[in-house]
């Protein structure tokens, strides 16, 4: 097949590739062909008939979106016959589409403060439609300047606007039935939460029997809204607010690091987020957090001025007073008495400054980031590969023949990573292994679902590795070329016999062998290692074994193969790179290593403490024990209140001195001696590093309004300078990044200026040509730079092993057997709480409460027969599971062999979470979604609620 063919479009010769459709070839060449149902990235469909063209030597007017290019093809987009077809099509579309926007005689004349025909103030909006001037139907009609044949009326469908579901408004009176939304939900996301209903003139988009999106399988990713050409699908927040400008930046909700275009109105409010179509990390996709979670940026409940505790109360102060007070309070509490906690929305520059401050000004290695509750998963990778990082990119996952997801709830936590997996599984090119004691959305897609007893992940993965060895599934040539330590590692697998592993994990032996065969034998395999159900101390082993499994089967450093650590924080990777970690310095160097310390000391001109610091949970334990006396906390996080860092409030109460920077009041600010008003992510510049090790520039999306806030970089530097420390006089994040590029060898070559130059070449369209929103917004695609950074102009990662193996070879580690965690007599079971989009056969009730729908369903607490017998429970009993943290989950008992012994399996619906987040009146609800980690629990008969009919 030829790589390049030539066709002629409107007399212009166009080079294109075989397999492309004519409309795509024309668009790529900058020739506009009108279309309404086609959308880049989706399969040809041919619904709207707007893209009809004439082909020389061919009869009729074929739709160019379903017509593949042929060498020598001569296309005429402006032929009279085609134009006639288009006119008729448009006319028919408009006969059912409310088009006040085209016929209002003032539509071009409206100015601020006018009073509209419809008797509303025209301030920044047109009230005829919520599409806010991005309507492709309107633009297309105007672009054609066609005469409207039919009278200027339309048949109104008179359908109820669906406004009761979270985040979305659906007005099918405006729908033109292009099916982009249903195709996006199906082809792009794999959910099919909406579909086409009925036929002919009645055809519309809908759900089964008009169900709520809460029960139709919707993950609230917003992909359908993003592709809707008209105002039928809109975000319910800021629905009528027209943007005055857009700004591209990186989402701060999870480590995927999606590039988004943010619409900003002229009051500096972020009103919408549209995922960037061509960004390498997300390829036009987003999730409920990224699409709908930014609203905290606009929240008015901000901390507006620096605050000082005087006489027991916080009072406003100047920045100078606050810096002086912080410096004075911290001065006497250096060394091991000091700790600093950052948050996952901090930029690399802030994290770098924070750890430098802790180490040089405070002489302490007690630094960590709040989201970093599972450092083991990257420590194990560091042991083997040399870096606290994963080895592959997000969208390589679409090319993997096998994906194995271990104890990770991707759909909820790192949503976009699940998209390539779901697509590939649905396309039949990938098989999925899920290792999780919970039921998650991905278990529906899995060929093999292993449900080990919580906390036995390392034993199970060891069993898989041993099974691969015993069955001759390893790649000896790969191992000898790229790994060392094989013999010791292999010898250490001695206790991991199938029977022993099966007995310890509760997973049947034949399933272990099946999974090992699948992982090792089907082609490039990806291993996504979470640790949601793991127990502290075992994750590092799990991750060493995972790395060994990947190396043993030759699944590293190839396209579609690799290991990805599945952590939570948007910039946790940055924290590890910057050395915001108790044991390591910038550049993945250990503080205990004298040579590494010397390098950093030389750069900083200040001594660096050598002793191992305390991290995450231990920081708060030490504070409660009175050994840590002063802390700096940057920002807020769910882990401060969900128990995963222990009793945080108790720890803060025990401190002598607490400095907090934050945007909103929190449990920490209540206890603080000094509070700094911090800028939120959208107000800052800097860089984030995503799960693919891609360093991406963060742009200033909005200016702070009515708030005297500063970035954590300025705040940390201000405190440091008030303490007389040198080396904090950066005049902005760009200067800090320059120092980072010197301190972190992997970042060498990164500058703020180069990050703004590294972009994809996307053809730009004239502004007056109608385009889908995502196409109109693309064109300035900043790709970021994956570390280790290639020289300028060079392709990303010419050698697949570059950036994966730090020491040239993988250093396989001997494997330890961690027995299954012992449970107390008081809480003998583990509550494995999972969340899915739908459960066939278990339809919830949807209750309309006020303006919103709510999910109501009797949940089931599923138990193995033996556990049910121990607890004295029978099928259908009302019961309550109580965890260590005092969480109570009510439900009826279901007895099932499919549930592992020792586990209470509870599966709730994603819709319930969406309702909860949407209805939350907290300023920043997405930052406070509880994680579904397995927790020790007991189950008892519910006393309070007598059961009906049970």
């Amino acid at each position, binding site marked *: 097949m030829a790589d390049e063919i030539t066709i002629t479009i409107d007399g212009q010769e166009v080079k294109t590739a075989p397999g492309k459709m004519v409309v795509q070839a024309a668009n790529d060449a900058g020739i506009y062909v009108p279309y309404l149902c086609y959308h880049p990235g989706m399969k040809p469909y041919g619904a709207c008939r707007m893209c009809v063209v004439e082909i020389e030597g061919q009869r009729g007017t074929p739709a160019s979106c379903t017509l593949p290019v042929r060498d020598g093809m001569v296309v005429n987009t402006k032929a009279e016959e085609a134009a006639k077809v288009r006119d008729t099509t448009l006319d028919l579309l408009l006969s059912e589409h409310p088009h006040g926007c085209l016929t209002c005689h003032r539509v071009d004349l409206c100015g601020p403060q006018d009073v509209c025909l419809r008797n509303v103030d025209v301030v920044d909006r047109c009230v005829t439609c919520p599409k806010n001037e991005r309507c492709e139907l309107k633009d297309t009609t105007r672009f054609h300047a066609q005469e409207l044949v039919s009278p200027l009326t339309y048949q109104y469908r008179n359908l109820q606007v669906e406004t009761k579901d979270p985040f979305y408004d659906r007005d099918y009176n405006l729908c033109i039935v292009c099916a982009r939304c249903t195709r996006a939900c199906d082809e792009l996301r794999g959910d099919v939460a909406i579909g086409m209903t*009925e036929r002919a003139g009645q055809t519309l988009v809908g759900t089964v*029997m008009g169900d709520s999106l809460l029960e139709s399988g919707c993950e609230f990713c917003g992909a359908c809204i993003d592709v809707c050409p008209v105002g039928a699908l809109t975000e319910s927040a800021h629905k009528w607010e027209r943007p005055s400008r857009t700004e591209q930046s990186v989402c701060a909700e999870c480590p995927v690091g999606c590039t988004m275009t943010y619409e900003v109105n002229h009051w500096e409010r972020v009103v919408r987020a549209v995922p960037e179509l061509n960004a390498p990390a997300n390829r036009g996709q987003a999730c409920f957090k990224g699409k709908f979670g930014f609203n905290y940026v606009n929240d008015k409940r901000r901390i507006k001025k620096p605050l000082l505790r005087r006489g027991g109360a916080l009072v406003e102060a100047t920045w100078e007073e606050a810096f002086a007070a912080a410096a004075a309070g911290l001065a006497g509490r250096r060394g091991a008495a000091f700790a600093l906690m950052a948050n996952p929305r901090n930029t690399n520059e802030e994290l770098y400054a924070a750890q430098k401050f802790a180490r040089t000004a405070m002489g302490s290695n007690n630094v960590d980031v709040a989201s970093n509750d599972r450092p083991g998963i990257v420590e194990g990778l560091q042991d083997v590969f040399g870096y606290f990082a994963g080895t592959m990119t997000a969208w390589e996952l679409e090319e993997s023949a096998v994906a194995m997801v271990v104890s990770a709830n991707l759909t909820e936590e790192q949503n976009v990573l699940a998209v390539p997996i779901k697509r590939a599984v649905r396309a039949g090119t990938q098989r999925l292994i899920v290792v999780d004691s919970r039921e998650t959305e991905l278990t529906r897609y899995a060929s093999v679902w292993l449900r080990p007893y919580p906390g036995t992940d390392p034993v199970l993965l060891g069993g898989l590795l041993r099974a691969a060895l015993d069955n001759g599934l390893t790649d000896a040539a790969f191992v000898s070329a790229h790994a060392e330590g094989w013999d010791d590692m292999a010898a250490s697998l001695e206790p991991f016999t199938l029977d022993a592993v099966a007995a310890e994990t509760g997973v049947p032996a034949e399933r272990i062998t099946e999974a090992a065969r699948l992982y090792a034998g089907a082609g490039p395999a990806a291993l996504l290692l979470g640790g949601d159900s793991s127990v502290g101390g075992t994750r590092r082993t799990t991750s060493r074994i995972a790395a060994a499994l990947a190396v043993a089967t030759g699944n590293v450093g190839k396209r579609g193969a690799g290991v990805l650590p599945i952590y939570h924080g948007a910039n946790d990777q940055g924290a590890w790179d910057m050395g915001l970690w108790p044991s390591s310095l910038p550049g993945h160097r250990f503080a205990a290593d004298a040579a590494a310390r010397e390098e950093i000391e030389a750069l900083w001109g200040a001594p660096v403490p050598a002793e191992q610091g305390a991290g995450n949970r231990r920081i708060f334990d030490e504070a409660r024990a009175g050994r840590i006396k002063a802390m700096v906390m940057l920002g807020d996080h769910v882990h401060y209140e969900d128990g995963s860092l222990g009793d945080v409030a108790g720890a803060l109460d025990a401190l002598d001195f607490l400095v907090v920077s934050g945007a909103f009041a929190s449990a920490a600010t209540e206890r603080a001696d000094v509070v700094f008003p911090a800028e939120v992510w959208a107000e800052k510049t800097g860089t984030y590093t995503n799960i693919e090790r891609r360093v991406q520039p963060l742009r200033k999306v909005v200016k702070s309004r009515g708030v005297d806030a500063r970035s954590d970089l300025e705040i940390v530097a201000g405190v440091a300078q008030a303490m007389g420390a040198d080396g904090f006089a950066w005049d902005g994040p760009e200067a800090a990044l320059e120092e980072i590029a010197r301190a972190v060898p992997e970042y060498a070559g990164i500058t703020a200026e180069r990050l703004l130059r590294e972009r994809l070449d996307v053809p730009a369209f004239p502004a007056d040509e109608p385009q889908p929103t995502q196409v109109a917004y693309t064109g300035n695609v900043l790709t970021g730079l994956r570390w280790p950074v290639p020289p300028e102009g060079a392709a990303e990662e010419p050698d697949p092993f570059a950036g994966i193996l730090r020491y040239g070879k993988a250093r396989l580690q001997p494997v330890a057997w961690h027995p299954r965690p012992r449970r107390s007599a008081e809480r003998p079971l583990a509550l494995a709480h999972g969340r899915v989009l739908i459960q*066939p*056969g278990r339809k919830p009730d949807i209750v309309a409460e006020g303006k919103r729908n709510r999910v109501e369903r009797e949940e089931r607490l599923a138990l193995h027969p033996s556990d049910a017998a121990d607890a004295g429970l029978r099928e259908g009993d009302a019961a309550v599971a109580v965890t260590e943290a005092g969480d109570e989950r009510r439900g009826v008992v279901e007895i099932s062999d499919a549930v592992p012994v020792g586990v209470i399996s509870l599966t709730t619906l994603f819709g319930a979470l969406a309702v909860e987040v949407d209805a939350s009146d907290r300023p920043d609800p997405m930052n406070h979604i509880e994680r579904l980690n397995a927790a020790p629990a007991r189950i008892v008969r519910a006393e309070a609620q007598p059961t009906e009919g049970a």
Partner: protein
Amino acid sequence: MSGGESWGAAHPAAGAAMSGGESRGGAAHPAAGAAPSGAELRERARRAIAEQPGKTVTVLSSLLAAQDELHYLPFEAIEEAAMSAGASVNEAWGVASFYPNFRFTPPARHSVEVCWGPTCHVLGAQPILQGLARHLGLDGEGDTEDGSVSLKFNTCLGVCPHAPAMSFDHQLAGRMSLDAAVSRLERVRSGEQGA
């Protein structure tokens, strides 16, 4: 498949009135006697879908099998048809709602069909179907409020020599007049009442 029943009303407006109203408003099932439970409906649908005789099993064939068993498609049947084909329930709904022959509420106890094919039309079907609808208190096709009769228009019952034709509980009747139709209808209804 029972011939008369499955080649039913094809009038677009009628189809819209039936399935359209429900798909947008949510399914409200008029109670016709003691309704079987959801679990029972699901089990019957599952068995009917599993026991389809045809070699090619599709969402459509499964929906037909379920409707043959249950005489309508409750949510449970649509979900079972979707699951058996590995499709989403919304996709299955796309198929089900496409065909006006599928119904999503339990049928009334008696079915009365009026043929309005060309021959029947010429020989006087129009007064019959209007008169019957009026008699039953309906605007057109549909179920009576008491759940006793489903009135349907049929494109062709296949007995043109006997036009105008009708069917009462799938029993054909020919050379009908409005009076004959009403009295036959009432006999059918009262037979049920006597039973």
